[in-house]
Structures are given as structure tokens and as C-alpha cells.
């Protein structure tokens, strides 16, 4: 081999062993550092959107309490959940959103500065905490015990243990107590800004909302733990709940994807949802003034050239209902920016009415709170209570029928808030719902099953939780849903 060849060979071998610089593995198009505010906005949006959502794939609470029904694809309204894994979807979004709130806390909790700053920061943390409480209580109210203390562990805990539902409720109440105290101390110190889509950082409003949720959770225990319920309610009254005309709402931005759920569901032209006959028939019977605020009328005439408008609901759970023959949601609720509501003064009044009916200390009498609740709901929907409404046999206050009356009117007042509407039916056992054809009253769910992927992904803890909750089926009552000796009315269907 010639000399120059050897040089060439050495050169090549040099290339072989030398090393080029490899690119780092950092995604240039994804952020690794973002302001906490941007995560808060996202989490508020996702979390509240979930509770308000009405997709048949995610949140069917409006169907479970029969505000609405579906035509054509009626599985969810007939309590067949597995095909769409509805509870998986709800549960998944809850935890992903909680992880965002956790991240917000993580990013700001170690910040410190002036006293004013520290109080402001404490307010921020308290607001995030209130939102976490809201998400957890909604999830627990759907399924029962869920992963709580071991949740959100990432790599460290892929299979978190489920906490007992009572223990979670107790802790949520304690957190609300602490949050209210923090907000009281820093009431004038500011918190979040525009990124708080709900109250724009209004600390006083967050505090009222926290107190309202505290009362809500407290009253859930009225049947099973009356002393705690009374104490919680008293604390909420002291802290100050949402007042007349006030509500905790997400005013939707009104541009995709930040639109209200009714707009989102129907803007694409689908025609398979509508009001259920359960609510429409009842409101027709009562001549309820809120009907035009809730629904549209449809032409029920069978004569050519004659129009006969009426409010008609979907016979609940029926397979095929001609879409043109039923009412739809009102034009106002179709607006893309129509706000979603999560707490309001009417709810406060009905909570107080229930407490008063039990003989607990409240500002006014049971009847006064009850009637104030009705009036507040009408006002909320922009109508006035028709003359004689409060004297109707099915409306007029009668302490002996307090469960039926409060249950029914609260259910009407919480229309379009499926999660709380379903809680009303479960805690009051009123109003009377319509079992779907071929099913009976005793098929109507008290809870949703756990997610279908939990037995797969977290089998041992799931099995324990399923037995702890009393069996993973839809007819297991949650701990606060005591029958109080009065079985659900079982009309002969």
C-alpha cells in the first residue's frame, strides 16, 4: 500500500471514531416555562366547562335528572353508559384539570415578598383551592370515593388509592373553612386579574362563592349528619353567601372553542337533543313563566295551514321522536356567549328553606326562603312570578310536603345545571321522574359507575373502592343520599 493511501486510511478511520455534535432533545415549539396565570385561565375554563358540559360523551347529568332527553341515540338517557365511557371522560378531565390547578399552586406557593404581596398571593392560592374543592365535590357526587390524598402523583404513584367519600367531604369542608378565613384576612389585597374568568379577582365574590359551596356541601349531609350540616350552614351564613342577583358564572367568550355548551352542541346542525317531557310537562301544568326563557314552542297542528304552538318535551328515553315535534332550547341559551352558572342566590334560598323546614336557625322562615327562591329564579331568568303561581296546589307552601315542594322548585330553579339538578333529585327524592320505556323507576341511577379503564389501570384500588362504595353499580346510593325512610315514589309505570 502506498504511503498516501495510508494517510487516507488514517483520515477515514479518524472520521469513523470522531463524533459529531448531536442535537439536544428540546422541543423548540413547545413551552417549558409559562406564567401561572395562563395555566389558571385554562384550568378555570376546562373545569367549569366540564361541570356545565352537556355532551352525551362526557356529562349526562342533565339527562339523569331529566331536564333534557335525546332522540335517536338514546343509550345515555336509557342509562347505558359503557358504549360511550361517559364517566371515563368526566373523570379524566377532572384530574387533568386538577393537575393544572396543582401546577398553578406549585408555581406560586413559594413566592414571597411584602406583606401585601403575601396576602395577595395567599388569596390567589385560596381561589385555586376553592376551584379544586368544586371539582372534587362534583366528582364525588357522581361516583363516590375517588383518589384524593394520593391523587396527582405522576410517576410516583400510577395507581393511587381511593379515599373514602365521607373523608373527602370532610376535608373539602375543612379546606373551604381555611379558604374563607384566608380570603377574609386579605379581602382588600387583590388576587388574580383578568385571567380569573369568573370574578376577575374579586376576592369578596370568591368568598361568597366559597360560603355558598360550604352551605351546599353541608346541607348534603342533612340526613346523615345533621349536626355537621347545621354547623356548616351556620358558618356559611356567617361568612356570607351569594346575595340577590349574584351568581358564580362563566361568561363564555363567544368564539370557538370558548362557547357555551348548547351552542357548541348544536352549531353543527345536530337535531337529536331536546327538553325532556319531564320538565316541560310539569312547567306546562304549572303555567310556569320561565318556559319561554328555557324553551321554544313547536307547531303541534295536524291540520294543513293551521298553526298550534305548544311546549312539547321528548318522551324521556323514547327511541324515535320526530325532531320537529318537540320544543328546543330558547334562543337566548343558544347564544355562543350565554353564561354557564355554578352557584346562584336562588340555590342559597332553597338551601335555607330546607334548613328552616328542618327547624334549624335561618334568617327567615321556611316559606319565606322557599318563596324567595322561586322569585329569585324567575328574576334570574328575566321573568316575574305570575300572579297566583305561589297559590297553585303544587306550589303553595305546605310544611308537610316540604321535601316535595322544595325538591321540585329547586330542581326547576337549577334548570340547565345538570349536576346540581341530579343532586336535588337524589337528596329530596323529588320530583317524580319518568322511567324510560321498558325500564322501571328502580332503574334510574343514583350514581355513575367508576370509569371503565380504572379496573384495567388501577385494579386493586378500584376493587377496594367499588366494595367500599357499596358496589360499583348505578343503584348504589352515595353516603349523603339517605332515603330518610321515605322510598322514592314508585308510580305504576
Amino acid at each position, binding site marked *: 500500500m502506498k504511503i498516501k493511501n495510508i494517510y487516507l486510511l488514517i483520515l477515514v478511520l479518524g472520521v469513523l471514531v470522531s*463524533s459529531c455534535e448531536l442535537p439536544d*432533545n428540546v422541543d423548540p415549539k413547545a413551552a417549558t416555562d409559562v406564567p401561572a396565570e395562563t395555566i389558571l385561565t385554562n384550568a378555570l375554563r376546562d373545569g367549569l366547562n366540564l361541570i356545565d358540559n352537556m355532551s352525551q360523551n362526557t356529562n349526562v347529568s342533565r339527562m339523569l335528572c331529566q331536564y333534557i332527553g335525546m332522540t335517536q341515540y338514546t343509550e345515555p338517557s336509557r342509562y347505558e353508559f*359503557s358504549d360511550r365511557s361517559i364517566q371515563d371522560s368526566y373523570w379524566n378531565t377532572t384530574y*387533568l384539570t386538577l393537575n393544572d390547578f396543582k401546577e398553578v399552586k406549585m408555581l406560586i406557593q413559594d413566592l414571597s415578598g411584602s406583606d401585601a404581596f403575601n396576602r395577595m398571593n395567599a388569596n390567589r392560592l385560596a381561589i385555586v383551592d376553592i376551584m379544586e374543592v368544586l371539582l372534587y365535590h362534583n366528582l364525588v357526587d357522581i361516583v363516590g370515593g375517588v383518589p384524593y390524598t394520593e391523587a396527582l402523583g405522576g410517576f410516583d404513584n400510577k395507581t393511587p388509592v381511593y379515599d373514602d367519600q365521607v373523608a373527602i367531604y370532610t376535608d373539602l369542608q375543612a379546606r373551604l373553612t381555611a379558604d374563607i378565613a384566608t380570603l377574609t384576612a386579605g379581602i382588600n389585597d387583590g388576587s388574580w386579574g383578568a385571567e380569573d374568568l369568573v370574578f376577575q379577582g374579586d376576592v369578596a365574590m370568591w368568598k361568597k362563592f366559597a360560603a355558598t359551596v360550604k352551605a351546599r356541601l353541608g346541607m348534603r349531609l342533612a340526613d346523615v349528619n345533621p349536626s355537621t350540616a347545621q354547623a356548616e350552614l351556620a358558618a356559611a351564613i356567617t361568612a356570607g353567601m351569594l346575595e340577590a342577583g349574584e351568581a358564580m358564572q362563566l361568561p363564555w367568550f363567544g368564539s370557538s372553542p370558548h362557547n357555551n355548551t348548547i351552542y357548541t352542541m348544536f352549531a353543527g346542525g345536530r*337535531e337529536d337533543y331536546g327538553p325532556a317531557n319531564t320538565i316541560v310537562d310539569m312547567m306546562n301544568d304549572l303555567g310556569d313563566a320561565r318556559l319561554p326563557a328555557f324553551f321554544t314552542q313547536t307547531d303541534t297542528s295536524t291540520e294543513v295551514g293551521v298553526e298550534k304552538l305548544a311546549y312539547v318535551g321528548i318522551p324521556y328515553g323514547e327511541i324515535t321522536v320526530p325532531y320537529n315535534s318537540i320544543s328546543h332550547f330558547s334562543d337566548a341559551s343558544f347564544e355562543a356567549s350565554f353564561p354557564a352558572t355554578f352557584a346562584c342566590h336562588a340555590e342559597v334560598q332553597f338551601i335555607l328553606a330546607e334548613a328552616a323546614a328542618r327547624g334549624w336557625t335561618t334568617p327567615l322562615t321556611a316559606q319565606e326562603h322557599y318563596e324567595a327562591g322561586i322569585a329569585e329564579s324567575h328574576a334570574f331568568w328575566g321573568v316575574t312570578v305570575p300572579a297566583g303561581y305561589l297559590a297553585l296546589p303544587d306550589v303553595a307552601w305546605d310544611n308537610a310536603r316540604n321535601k316535595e315542594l322544595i325538591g321540585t322548585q329547586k330542581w326547576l330553579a337549577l334548570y340547565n345545571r345538570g349536576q346540581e339538578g341530579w343532586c336535588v333529585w337524589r337528596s329530596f327524592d323529588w320530583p317524580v321522574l319518568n322511567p324510560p320505556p321498558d325500564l322501571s323507576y328502580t332503574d334510574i341511577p343514583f350514581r355513575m359507575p367508576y370509569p371503565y*379503564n380504572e379496573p384495567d389501570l388501577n385494579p386493586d384500588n378500584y376493587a377496594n373502592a367499588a366494595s367500599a362504595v357499596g358496589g360499583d353499580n348505578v343503584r348504589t346510593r352515595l353516603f349523603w343520599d339517605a332515603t330518610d325512610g321515605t322510598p322514592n315514589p314508585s308510580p305504576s309505570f
Partner: protein
Amino acid sequence: MKRFVFVLSLLLFAGFSALQGQGVQVTGNVTGADDGTALPGVSVVVRGTTIGAVTDFEGNYSITVPDASATLMFSFVGMLTQEVALDGQTSLDVVLESTSTELDEVVVTALGVSREKKSLGYSVQEIDGDAVNSSSPSNFAASLSGKISGVQIKQPNTMGGSSNVLIRGSTSLTGNNQPLYVLDGVPVDNSNYASNNGNYGGGFDYGNVAQDINPNDIESISVLKGAAASALYGSRAANGVILITTKKGKTRKGIGVSVNSNFVVGKVDKSTLPKQQYEYGAGYGPFGEDPDYSNFWWGDVDGDGANDYITITADDASWGQKFDPNLMVVHWDALDPSASNYGEKRPWVAPPEGNRFDSFFETNTKWVNTVAFDGGNKDGRFRLSYTNYSEKGFLPNSELKKNSVNFSGSYNFSKKLSVSANVSYTYQNALGRMGTGYDGGNVMQSFGQWFQTNVDFTRLEQYESPTGLHRTWNYAYWTPDRLSPIYFDNPYWVRYKNYEDDYRSRVLGYVSADYKFTDWLTLTLRTAVDTYHDVQNERLAEGSNGISDFTTRQRNLLESNTDVMLKFNKGFGQISLNGLVGANYRHRQQQRITGSTVGGLVVPEFYSVTNSVDPYNVSEYLGILGEQSAYANVSVGYGGFVYLEGTARVDQSSTLRGLNPDAEDTYFYPSVAGTLLIHELGGLKDVSWMNYLKLRLNYAQVGAGTGVYRTISTYGQGTNWGNLSLFSVANTLQNPNLKSENTSSLEAGIEAFFFESRVGIDLAVYKTNSFDQIFSVPVSRASGYNSMYVNGGEVENKGLEIALHLVPVKTADWQWNIDVNWFTNQNTVISLAEGVPSLQLMRQWGTYITAAAGEPYGTIKGTNYVYTDGKITVEDNGYLMVGDDPLEVIGNIQPDWNMGIASRLSWKGLSFYALVDWQHGGDISSFNTRYGWATGVYAETAGNNPKGNPQRDPVADGGGNIFEGAVFEDGTPNDVYVPAFRWGRYWHYGNSPEARYVFDASYIKLRELSLSYALPATVLGDSFIRGVNISVVGRNLWIIHKNVEHFDPEIMYTAGNMQGIENGAIPSLKSVGVNVKLDF
């Protein structure tokens, strides 16, 4: 880009100049027997010595021999080695015969190195390029089906759609399991850009981009099956390698011209279409308003003051009124006030044959024309080809066009330095690809599941009113204000309004320089680049069901590979030594920008992202990957009967780097292979009936990195809320501690030929284990994440492959060859990550395709039947009982075995070929069947019941349907008839066990039938035409057997691992093509 410019300039500046020969004692010329052209590069060796020479580019050689009685051995790739005794001659011309048996076959192996097949300790199978080209001019991968054992191919039924190629089973849990495609030694990108791989499908199948390789430029394809064969390619070769060798110029006089024309006509195979019933029309049942039948709407359309029967257009089902020519009904097409027949009443009858849904499909045509020029002398060779491909799809408004130019050239600068380069440019544009899956964009979703059998397709063709409004059979209601689609668009509207278009321009090329230090040591430097720009535009027109939309995706890819290799090949007496040492640097940059309108289009039918009602969405992706590797391969042979080969490779991958400074980004893996040629052993050499008997054994490992950016977590970004930005913690948790994946495989094989090579067998057994897999594992969402990247899991594939070659007839004029390929692959998921018992690969409603520890990959799960004494059990009311476990095993996507039987009968220049492709076993869950039964569209839901009465009559009148053969819980036979409607779907779609819709996916297909004729040289004589080849090729002409009624069991749901599901199955094509090849 720089490298590409380099390739181009090299091609431009390459000229042709002369090179001097050498003076010698023995000289001569070597030509090939086939075409008489000179053979350059033939090795000439003096027997028993190490004296050797190589023929130059005109086939000339000169060699100094020790004495005139020496014997010269002439050997060349693909030719029979010839030994000639000199007997004093000093001038010797030799004609080499091409290899007539596989005994001395030379195959292309890893890194483009040609090797004698007999020396290989692993399994390689080769296919001739012409076979590919004439049978499947659109997608070369599809033509391999049934021809290579161990390779399972799923065909694209859509125009330009993906083909799924699986070599020796699925090894990766969540990877795409596709082989690596290598063109002349250079890896080719094979990304798949199906626009939606989501569970329920939808979007368009844009095909896998390896299809850009022009079949007309393919000389041959080698399939490297085991890890040992592919160990040198590293990471990407874990699923096997498909090596493509392109055609090159030949040394010849003048310029050779070759013209190839291919015309293929295809028709939809009706046996793969849903079988609909034509006894009953629209409706979900008697829920209508009319007082007589309750199967119609009831209103005054024609304005005569009396109500009319109106088709319930809103119902996407056919449980309605029995057809009756005396019943006058306003059909869907008479509801539009702008229609000339507004308010018209017509008899309630099924459309006549020819106006039914099958008339929607058009004839598929493909025109492929290629012209190629080639030439060469002792200094250089070139080939230039141009191919024009033009396809009209079988759906209205679909076409695919491709133009490819390929240039390859080589030039010898000196005796030591030679340079070669290859560049191909492809421009492809398509319009109106077919939608896929459970989506309105796929017309089969409606035809196969949700439809009204009363719809006349000639009337559907008027899909638009004079004012541009959408006319569809599925109006929300009959009144003029409600004439919009409730669920389904008119299929013609789908095709002509909601069409996609896409284009891709791609440059693929390499330049390679060889420097010969000595006759046994060569240095090769090669750099290759693969780059393309790909654009997809998707539309949803205003007036469609859904919010109007425009989405565009623009992708750029740039991948470069640079290799430095030192190759050696030397003999020391009985010992032969060959191998290489090399290094590779790979850089890959993939960019994507997606823009889409949000909330609808402002101006209808103006398709621009900025024409958006709400602020439009734009997202960007940039993936940058780098890998560098060093590798070595040594093969030692002794006495021509035993060979031992080893490879070693070390890779460093950027994908394993992250914030962790101790990340193990470098990994090593070896392979060893041994070969024993028993027929060469002492006493066995003279056994006349045994021509060839080879044993081979190998063990190999292949390591792999992973995808980019899996080690560092980042935030996800949502759409702004006004001027507020939204970020969230990503749903997938990345893992900073990832290590390389590994595959190890053990393979043993026997190759044998007996009785003058009339009987041959090639047998392989293998076991492949893929472990430490990197995949995103779903976790309990209560962890805060949907999924996390982990290293873990092991998948085992065990298999047996048998290839049998028979030559029952062989005379001077006649030859009959039979080739049988049979293989089976047993797949088991040994483990997943710790604490992860099961991985969901796909889910559709209650049916899951899973990978779970202890089960085969692709196990189908869902609710099962309840069995009593092995019989399906029904409730007392006659409905199917459903098992409690929502995740019972109800099937598996893996076939038991596959077989291809090919027969070629030739007589002189005439050759007749038939290929039967057989899959036995494997299951498929059919959603068409599930919904076709539920909606009363399918034939089984009409006609008579076993009692001989119309099944749709009331049960009380002797109608209804029954689950035949089922028993009650006490074991007595089921005798309860249920209403036909309830038989189809009970109350709801999900009330039957999922197992009811799982079917055996076995099939036997006549895959290919061809007749070809090569004009004998005597006819052509001295004319300027040197060769004429004519062939007629039929593909998929006959499905000889299948066990499913309404679709092709071979259907591919979508690209990638999501198999075992049929949903909106696209019918298969039967095609016949004529191929004419002229050589001048």
C-alpha cells in the same frame, strides 16, 4: 439542501472520458448469455491461487497466469460461475449464463452489499422488479403479498392509500411496526400522513410515503426478515428491511431505449360490498305521523289541501314501510321547492338495479407510461427514466397523478476512484381521496350502516339546488325551512363539495464515491438526502352536516444520511474474509404547520385559513433528530462450506438525551451468524440427488432509540381566550430516564435442493423478543396524566416459515414452477410496564383491541355471549344474554397462518402465472354488520324467517326473527321469536354482546393471474427492436372463500397498528391490466 446541490453538480459535471487498459499474457472478453452485452466487474481468478483480475467496463480482462495449463474461474453476481482450462490459449472469450437456480444466487444485503446467498446465515428473499411493476404499478409493496413467507401485507383499497407491511409479526407495542425501506443502501422515509388515526377513524388516508418510489425504476427487492439480516441498519430495522435496488445503465453500444406502458382497469368487487335489502324503505319503525301506516310524515307538500305521505328523511334506517307500487309517496327529492318535481308523488318502490348504491362506484383506471434511456461504456454508465402515472379512482371526483424522473450515473475517474450518483424527483398530486372510518367523509359509513334503501342514486346526482343548496336524502324535516342534512350529506355532495386535495414534491438522491486502495480494500463515502414538501387541504363546505371548515397541513422533511465504509474482501488459501467497518451520521428534520378555520367559513366555498368566522388556529411542529453510529461486519469462510459472520453496531441517539446529564444515549448491539453447506462436505459432494443443503443459525440484537422529545415535559397550549393565553400541563408525562429499546432474535434455517434442483425447500424457525420498549402507557387519570412514557414491556414472536419450490416439468420448451410459501407467527405479549396489565390499542364503542400480558398482541375484547353447554344463551324473552365482563377475550387479530401458492407455466416465451393468497384465522370486529343489522339496511333483516313467514311481520302473526341454535339458561332450545327490529338491535345498539359482531377473517384469494409473452429474438431479427414483452395481469379477480358477508376480511381499517376492526369498510377492487414493454 447543500447535499442535494452537490449531487446535482456532480451529475452536471460528470463527463465521459477514456481510461487506459493494461497489457497481459491472457486476454479475453466476457459477455452475458441473455442479451450478449459486455459484463464489467466479472472476477477472473486462476484456480488454486490468489491471482485475479476483474473485467473492465467493456467486459475485457487481462491476467498473468503462472503457466498455460492453468484453469480460469469466471464469477459474477447473478451468473453461474464458469471454470475454463486454458490449454495453452492466450485469448479466451467467455459467455456467462445467468443463474438458473437459486443455488448460486447473489442477493443484496444490508448497506447495499451484494453477497452470495449461500454464505448468509440468515433469511433473505428476493423479488424481481418486473414482477412488481407489471402487477402493481401504483404501490410496489402490495405486489409482495403471498410471494414472501413471513410477510403479511394489507392492501390499500383506497386510491393511493397506505399499505401495512408486517414482517414476522408485530414487535413493537405502540410503534408502527413497519419495515425500513432502503433504496440502493440509503434509508427512505416512510412516514404515514393519514390525517386521522383516531379511534373512530375519519380523515383521509394519504398513504405511506415510501410509495413515492417508482416501481418502474425497481430492479429488484430483497426482504431482510430477521434481526441478523438487518442488524447493520440499527434502530429503524427492528421490524425488518425492504431493500430496493434500482435499475442502472448497462455497458452497451449506443443508447438503449425502453418504453413501458401499463393500463389497468379496476371494478369494485361486489362480493365486498354490503348486501342491502330492497323490501322495505326508510324509517326506524312506525313512529310517523300518517294515520295509515305510521311509517311516513304527514303533510301537504303539493299544496292541494290534502296531506301526503312523505318519506321520513330524517331516519337513517330502513325499518319502514314495505315497498308497494300502489302506494304514492313524496320522496326526498320532491321536497325541495326549487326541484322541477316539487311535491311529486311516486310509487313506494325500491330503486331498480343500476340505480342502487353500488352504481355510485365508477371504473378505476390507471395509465402508467415510462420511457427510459440507458447507456454506458468502460468509463461510465447512466440511466434516465421518466414515468407518468395517472389514476382515476373508483369514487366520483377522484384522481391521482404522479410524475417521476430518475437519473443514475456512475463514472470511473481512475482505476481506483469511481463515483456514482442517483437522483429522483417525484411530484404527486391527488384530488378527492376517499374518507375513512366512522365518518361522514367516508360514503361507506352511510352505505354500510345508516341508509334508506329506497334512495334512487340517479336522483342523488342532483346534489345541489340551482341556488347552491345541499340536496340530501337525509333532510331534517320535509318543510322548506328544514331541508338541511340531519346526519348524512348526499354522497355526491361529499365527493364534489367536501373533497380534499394534496400534493407532494420529493427529491431523493445520493452520491457515492469508491476508492480502491487495493483489489481487496475499498473505501466508500456516501451521502444521501431525502427531502419533500407535502401539502394537504381538507374542506367541509357550507351546507354540509357540521360546521364548514378548511384545514391545511404543510410538511417539510429533510433527512440526510452520511456513511463512511471501509470494505474488504480477501482470500487466504482456503479462508475467505470479507466485511466492512463504517460509520453513519443521520440527521432528520421534520416540520409541520397546520392551519384551520374555526367556527366556520365567512365566505362559503372560499377555502383559505384566514376565511374563518372565529380566530383561526395555527399550530407548528418541528422535530429534529440526530443519530451517529459506528458499525462493523466480518464474515469468515473456510473451504467454501462453512461461514461465520458477526456484526457489531453502536448508536448514539439524540432522542435519549434530556435534562438528565447521565442519560444513557449510547447503546451497543451485536449479531452472529453461522452457515454450513453440507453438500460441500467431503463424502457428500458426490451424492447425485442432493444438490444443495445448507444449515444456518443466527442470533442478533437490535437496539433502538425513540421518537423525539420524550424526555422533557412541556406545556400544551390551547386557543386563546380573547387576549388571554391558555397553557396546561401536558396530558402525557415525559420520562427523563429513557434507555434504548432492544430486540433479540434467534433464527435457524435449512435450505435444500434435490434432484437437479427440481425440489427445493427453505425452512426457517425464529424467536424474536422485543423488550425495554419505550411507549406511552395509559395510567389511571387520577395520577394527573393520561399516559406516561416508560421503558418496559416485552413482546415475543415465534414463527415457522416454509418455502417450497417445485419444478414438476422442465424440458427445452416447457417449464412449470410451483412456489409455496407458508408461515405462521405466534405473538405473545410477555409483559407491559410494571403495574400495567393491559394496553388499549384501539377502542370502538364496547370493543377493544388490546395488548395484555400473557395474551397475543391485538386481542379483541368486549362483552361475550353467555354459553350454556357450549351454546349461545338467550333470556326467556328470546334476546341474547350478555356476559358480565366488559373485557372478555372475544377474538384475536393474528391469523393462524398464511400461505401463498404460485404457479408459473412457461412455454418458450409464453408464461402463465397464478398466485393464490390464503389467510387462515384471525378475527375482525365488524361495525358495518352491527349497524347494518340495527338499521334494517342489511339483507338479513328482511325476507322470511325460519317458519317461512316474512320476518318483519308482527310476531303474533308468525313473523319475527329468532336466534337460531341458541338455548335458554336451562339448556332447552330457544323457540322465542322476537320482532325483527329488536333482533337487529334489541332496544339499542349496544344491547347485544360485542362478540356477536366478531367474525373469522380467513380468506382465500386469487391474488394474481397473468399471461405474458416475450417475442423471441428470431422474430425480431436484426430490426431495431431488441425486445417485446406483453403481459396481461389480473389482480384480486376472485375471492375464492371468505367467512364474512358484507365486506372484505382483508380490509385495513387505517394505517398502523389499529387493525382488527372493520368500520365503514371500503370495497376491494378487481383489476385487469395490460403491460407492454419495448426495448430498442
